[in-house]
Every structure is written in C-alpha cells, then in structure tokens.
C-alpha cells in the first residue's frame, strides 16, 4: 500500500505485550487514516461503557493519510480515547512529528491498552517495542521529559505528559515537539495508564504511488499557499490575527466567563500589539508551508515559548479578563509545560473568578482572591490545578464536575457543553456554532465543524448568504461541515487550508495512494466517520438532553455589534432536531437503521 505504514501496533501496558498486524487495505480505503481509523478502531476495540481512566480504555494514535506524503500542510496526527471530561468519544488532532515517525516505523495505528504497574514510557524503534521505567521522569515537565528521553535514547520523536497528566487533571494535554493534543483530557488518560511518554523512531521509506505527480502537485500548491493572503496575515500575527475583527466587527469574542462578547481591555492581547514586540519567528507544524505558530521571547522568561494561539488569547486572556499579554504568555507556558489544555484551563479559571466575584465562593475556599483581570491569581490557580492542590483539586475536574461539587448555584456559571469548556466563539451571536457546540462528538468544539468561518463571513464552499444571527436551516449546514472536516482529519490536512483545497484531493490521492477520490466519495466517508463517532457516544450513554447549551448562552450579549443576540431554548431544540433530521437520525438523535445500512456500518450496532 502506498503512503501507508501498512501495519497496526497494539501494545498492552499491563502484560507488556506488543502485537503487530497488517492494516487491512479495505479498511484503509473505507476510512482513509487519522480520524477515520480512530472512528473504526475505537468502536472495534474500546468498550464504550468503561471509565475513561480504566485500563480497558485505550489511547489510539493515527497519523492522517497525507502524513509523510509531501502534501503541503498535510502533517496532522490524531489521538483518540474516551473523554476524561464526559466519558464519551474524544479526539484531538495535533501537528507534531510523532505521526511521521510512526508511519516510517510502519504503523498507521498505534493502540495502547492496559496500565503499567509503575510510571513508564513506551519506546518504539521500528519493530522493537519496549516499555521502560519513567520513574526518574516523575513530576518532570513535558519538555524536560522529551529532552531527557532523547538524551538517553537518541533521535526519537517524543510525545509526553506533564504533572497535570500524571495527576489526572481531566483536561490534561499531550505534548509533542511543542504541539499539543489538548482537548478532552487525552493527557489524563495517558497518566491513568502510568504512561509518561511515547518515543518513536521509524527508519523505513514511505512509498509514494506517483512521485513525479506528487512533486508537481507540491509545486502547484506551494505557490498557491505562499501567495495566499493568509500566508502574510498568519505569518505575521498567527491565528489571533482576526481577534480585533471578532471584537469590533462581530462582537463575538467571549469575555469574563461569557458575560460579554467584547473585551474592552483587549489592546495588548491583540497580536498586532505583541507580535512586533515579542514574536521572533514562525513555528510550523510538520509538513506546513504556511506556518501560523509563533516563537515568543520575553525577557521575563529564561528561554522562549511557543504561542500564543487565538483560542488561548481568549481562554487565558479575555475569559479571565487579563489585559497584559505577558500574563497570557506565562499562563500559556505553564499550561504547555505542566501539560494542560489552554482552552479548558481558561474556562475553569474564568469560572472560578466569576464564582468569586458573585460571592459563591470566597477567599477561604480558594486560599486567595481571584478577581477578573488578576494575572498573578491566574498563574497561581493554574499551578494549583496541575498539582491538584487545594481548590485546584476541585477545578481539575473541569467546570461541570467542579460546579456540582461546589454547589450553591455554581452550575449556572459553568460554561460547558457535555462537560467540555468551549472555545473562543460567543455562539449567542453565531447560532450555527451554537448547534456545532451541541452536535460535536466530544463536547463544545469549534473544530469538528469549523463552521465559524462560514457563519462569521456568511459564505464558504457551497454555502452563501448564511446569517449568523438566525437559527434557521442550520442542521444541514453543520452536518455538511462536520462531514467535510472529518475528511480533513482523516487525511491529516490542516483546517486552515480548507479555503485553498476545499475537497479537491483527487489528484493528491492519486499521487499518494494511487487512487482518485472525488468530493462526493470523500464526503460519504466523512459522513460514515461522523456516524461512527456518534455510535460510540450512544453506546457510552449519550443522551440528547446532555447536549444542552449552558445557561449563559440564553442571556443576551450586553454590548457591541451583536448586542441583544442570544440562543433561546426553543431555538436550541429546533436546531438540534433540524440537525438530527439532516443526519438521518430520529428525534432522539439515534441513527436510523436505513442510514447505517446506507453508510455500510450497521455491523457496529449488532
């Protein structure tokens, strides 16, 4: 098989056994790679009923089909597991190099099951698979862990967790070369397996079906990308480039735990302010030709940090009312080193600040004062979360569980959908995204649909004239976009390239694997993947009622361009039913037999 590693590796940390099996070509063509393989193997292997921290849960890693193909921006690798935040489906896609190393080692899917009896790391060197003691790495940061393993083992690519993952913080992340699989607590699942790191070296060739054709396609798309407007915008200012636009032109930049949609103190967290001062060069994901990452140097730090992304400028910035970018950068660094998802981290700290300001919890509960805008408090709380110290032990469970534990009406300040803290889109003024938060298989998420761009600009792909303030006709739009994005996650293509490639991958598929697939065929696979994720969720106990939006989304935006807009409970229900209908599911969100037969996946419910 061209462009595939050709095998699946299954490692049981309990027994220490590793089994290598060939990848079935039929499965490859039906699911492509990355997200598709995750959807297939999660359903095949993981018992959806087990606890996320049970040894019977699995951590699955699958590089996208285009990883190691040369397709520009096609270097993404996906991680899968049961969510530590809600016990359902979880996936997190990153641009680190581990996927390429796995493919060169001959693996398209790495499945890790069981639990090691002491803190360990997994070493994969082509066919040699070893579980080694990581007791000397206990408490180390993600970066220290990677550095020490590389020093001991050599030229390996390392994915690691920090103290937060070891301490089962329910939104702990996995780091690989400064890229993170952040969402849904993938790092905590790794921690629950006593797995500190995964180190991979692969020496084999990745064979390309039509190398000359691939070269010409690289030439073509490289030219398009470096001449694209986003090349300069993202190159200079990173993903936060449109922050001011979100604030002023759309009024949908969530602020102070979703009280407001405009952040009045945004001036210095805007990349137009900080990039010229602190960013010294760009950082790219694997195989990227239009990098948007930023290396950030401040004299307050000993070294440099990676960041800061748009979502983080919201979560650790506006959502906590932080006006000084220096604090956002420090908080970002703490999250990356301790291994914490920055989006959930800011959601949790903003929630705690809101509780404090509203008198639900006091200084005695917290051990400190935490008002919106207090940068020192933000840093302090993050450390407490990572170490599960004091109030940090409660907050480390995410806002949903924390609010239940705190009680006293804390629930109404907890902004989440299905236990996951949402990203930087005030969906009160982006109603299609409100639906996307509800329909996403992993909880409040902007990436499964990526529909924010379509909603905010009104047009993308086959859609135009979309009204973000309307709740009409959103079901098919979001289902279509989820299918579209599932293709991107299966192929491993960066979503910031979606405006360039759309679904025109037939030539690149022919060049890489030797088989053309057009838009319709890819969308059909995307739909199959989305349905499989949903089947996993249903088996794990998903209920329609769990998808509801947080209370704050039912309160109108107080100021700015979107002033007065909110999502009513009726709209919430209407959009969800519209979505189920578009998906061919019944009114309770259960896929019909007909739909599953059509997609060729009815075996998964029998």
């Amino acid at each position, binding site marked *: 098989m061209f462009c595939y590693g050709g095998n699946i590796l299954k490692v049981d940390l309990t027994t220490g056994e590793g089994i290598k099996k060939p990848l079935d070509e039929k499965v490859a063509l039906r699911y492509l790679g990355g997200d598709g393989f995750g959807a297939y193997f999660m359903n095949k292997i993981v018992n959806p009923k087990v606890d996320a921290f049970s040894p019977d849960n699995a951590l699955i890693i699958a590089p996208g089909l285009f990883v*190691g*193909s*040369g397709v*520009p921006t096609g*270097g993404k690798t996906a991680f899968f597991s049961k969510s530590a935040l809600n016990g359902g489906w979880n996936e997190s896609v990153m641009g680190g*190099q581990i996927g*390429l190393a796995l493919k*060169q080692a001959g693996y398209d899917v790495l499945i890790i099951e069981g639990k090691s009896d002491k803190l360990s790391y997994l070493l994969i060197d082509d066919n040699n698979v070893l579980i080694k003691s990581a007791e000397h790495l206990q408490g180390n940061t993600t970066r220290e862990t990677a550095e020490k393993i590389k020093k001991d083992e050599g030229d390996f690519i390392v994915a690691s967790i920090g103290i937060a993952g070891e301490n089962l913080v329910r939104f702990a992340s996995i780091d690989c*070369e*400064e890229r993170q699989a952040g969402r849904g607590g993938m790092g905590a699942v790794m921690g629950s397996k006593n797995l500190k790191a995964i180190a991979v070296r692969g*020496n*084999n*060739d*990745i*064979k*390309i079906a039509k*190398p000359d054709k*691939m*070269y010409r396609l*690289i030439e073509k798309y*490289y030219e398009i*990308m*470096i001449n694209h407007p986003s*090349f300069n915008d993202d190159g200079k200012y990173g993903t936060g480039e449109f922050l001011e636009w979100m604030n002023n032109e759309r009024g949908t930049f969530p602020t102070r735990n979703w009280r407001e949609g405009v952040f009045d103190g945004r001036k210095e967290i805007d990349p137009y302010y900080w990039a010229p001062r602190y960013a*010294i*060069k*760009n*950082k*790219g*994901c*694997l*195989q*990227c*030709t*239009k*990098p948007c*990452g930023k*290396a950030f*140097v401040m004299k307050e730090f000993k*070294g*440099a*940090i*990676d960041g800061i992304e748009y979502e983080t400028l919201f979560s650790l910035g506006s959502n906590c009312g932080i006006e000084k970018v220096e604090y956002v950068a420090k908080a970002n660094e703490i999250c990356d080193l301790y291994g914490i998802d920055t989006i959930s981290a800011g959601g949790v700290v903003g929630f705690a600040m809101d509780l404090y300001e509203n008198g639900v919890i006091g200084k005695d509960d917290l051990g400190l004062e935490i008002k919106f805008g207090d940068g020192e408090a933000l840093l302090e709380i993050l450390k407490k979360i990572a170490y599960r110290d004091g109030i940090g032990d409660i907050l480390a469970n995410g806002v949903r569980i924390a609010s239940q534990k705190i009680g006293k009406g804390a629930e109404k300040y907890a902004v989440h959908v299905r236990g996951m803290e949402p990203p930087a889109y005030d969906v009160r003024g982006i109603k299609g995204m409100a639906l996307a938060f509800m329909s996403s298989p992993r909880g409040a998420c902007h990436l499964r649909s990526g529909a924010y761009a379509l909603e905010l600009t009104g047009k993308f792909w086959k859609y135009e004239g979309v009204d973000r303030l309307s709740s009409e006709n959103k079901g098919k739009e979001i289902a279509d976009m989820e299918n579209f994005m599932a293709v991107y996650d299966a192929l491993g293509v960066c979503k910031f390239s979606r405006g360039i490639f759309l679904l025109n991958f037939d030539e690149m598929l022919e060049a890489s694997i030797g088989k053309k697939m057009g838009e319709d065929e890819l969308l059909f696979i995307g739909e199959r993947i989305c349905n499989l994720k949903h089947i996993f969720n249903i088996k794990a106990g998903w209920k329609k009622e769990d998808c509801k939006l947080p209370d704050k989304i039912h309160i109108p935006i107080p100021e700015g361009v979107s002033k007065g807009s909110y999502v009513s409970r009726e709209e919430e229900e209407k959009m969800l039913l519209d979505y189920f209908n578009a998906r061919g599911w019944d009114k309770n969100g259960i896929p019909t037999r007909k739909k599953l037969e059509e997609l060729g996946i009815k075996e998964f419910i029998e």
Partner: protein
Amino acid sequence: MYVKAIPEKCCGCLFCETVCSLWHWNVINKYKSGIRVHKKSVIEDIPSVCSHGNLCNFECIEACKFDAMKKKNGTVYVDYKNCTGCRACEKACPLNAVWIHEKKAYKCDLCGGDPQCVKFCSQNALVMEV
C-alpha cells in the same frame, strides 16, 4: 555554491526534508534527505546541510577510505557504488551534514544546481550562497 541555513528563520516544519527525499529517492524518508533539521529548543531549529567546502575543508573526502566521497564542479557528492556506510565521513564532518542510513551516506548534492530545499522553504531560512 552552497545552501546556507539561517536558523533564526527556520520554523521547524521539515518540508525541506520531505521534498529532498522525494526529489532524490521518490520516497519520503527523513533519513534519506540531504538536509536535516534538529530542534534544540523552542526557538532553535537548526538545519544541517553541507557547505561543499565553503565552511569546511572537505573533511569527509579526506576521511573516506573507499573513494565514495567525491567532488565535481564544486559539489561534494556520494558515489554510492563505493560507499560502505563506515561512518568515517559522518564522524569527520564539522557541520554534522552527513549521516548514515542503512549503510549508506546521505548528504546534500545541490540537486544539480536547483536545491529543492531552498525552492520550497516558505520562511526563506535556506538560501543559495554563490
């Protein structure tokens, strides 16, 4: 003529490694690339690539006992029929710009005058020095 690396601009995407191995060998394999990028820290992505005598004294040619490291029109290249993968060149190179993979040496050969890594470096971190 040689490829000069400017680490201060390198973003660590490894696209140079990818296109180099594809162009030379029709496969993707970072160990068969004539350029390698090593990440030393968050800001230090260090491309290693041969200077073809401009920043060294042809230590690889000197060290090779099998007449596998040769020079033609200012370009140092590997003569694969002679290379045994003994690692003498790898050890001798002061720029860490030669490496051994499966008993063969890999290094920059300037792609016949149009280095692919330079052509596809989106950050202009690789430039031709004449």
